[in-house]
């Protein structure tokens, strides 16, 4: 299950969607809006995406993950729009027969999402400035 949404993420529903009698392990990752980054204070984040490609890339990640680990069920949901401190920006859930597989697959999934899926966040710093986050690119 893959979803881009402007609404708060219901991670319990996401987690329920991957539970299975064939799996002994479920790993859920939540990314949440953190206040402090490198000594600077965030008050909010804005997320945008390239919708068709973001969905295609997330599906590609789920497919590729299954070639690497014996994944039973998996789901990703990413929120878009304006997020306040503590809000959940992304939830990814994976079920596998055994826990080592679930931890490895879950970590790979979120690592790859962060480099492949065309979603961008804009920092709203406490000094009133805003800044798109583009890893590797010097600040504007």
């Amino acid at each position, binding site marked *: 299950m893959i979803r881009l949404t402007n609404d708060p993420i219901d991670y319990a529903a996401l987690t329920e969607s991957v539970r299975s009698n064939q799996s002994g392990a479920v790993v859920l990752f939540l990314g949440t809006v953190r206040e402090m980054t490198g000594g600077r204070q965030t008050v909010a984040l804005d997320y945008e995406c390239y919708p068709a*490609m973001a969905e295609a890339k997330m599906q590609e990640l789920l497919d590729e993950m299954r070639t690497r680990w014996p994944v039973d069920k998996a789901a990703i949901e*990413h929120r878009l729009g304006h997020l306040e401190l503590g809000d959940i920006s992304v939830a990814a859930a994976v079920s596998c027969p055994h826990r080592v597989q679930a931890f490895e697959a879950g970590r790979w999934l979120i690592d790859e999402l962060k480099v492949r899926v065309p979603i*961008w966040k804009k920092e709203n710093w406490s000094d009133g400035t805003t800044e798109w986050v583009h890893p590797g690119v010097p600040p504007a």
Partner: protein
Amino acid sequence: MKIAVKLFARARDLAGTESMTVDIPAEGTVASLRGAMREVCPALAPLTPHLFVAINAQYAGDTVTIRPSDEVACFPPVSGG
């Protein structure tokens, strides 16, 4: 041929538009698209070395040929999650 290029995040902000149209030769490549974008929109210069191009929702290297029906997008490094 005229190609509409979707722009996102800081690329869109610098260009001041969600979609720019550039003219490239028939059978033009991603490299020629990049060149045309630089000419049409000098404001993108600070991002130029960092921009990704996607053709039909797939990352595309400089040698990929663009067809008139392709959906083309251009954006800086992603930061979801």
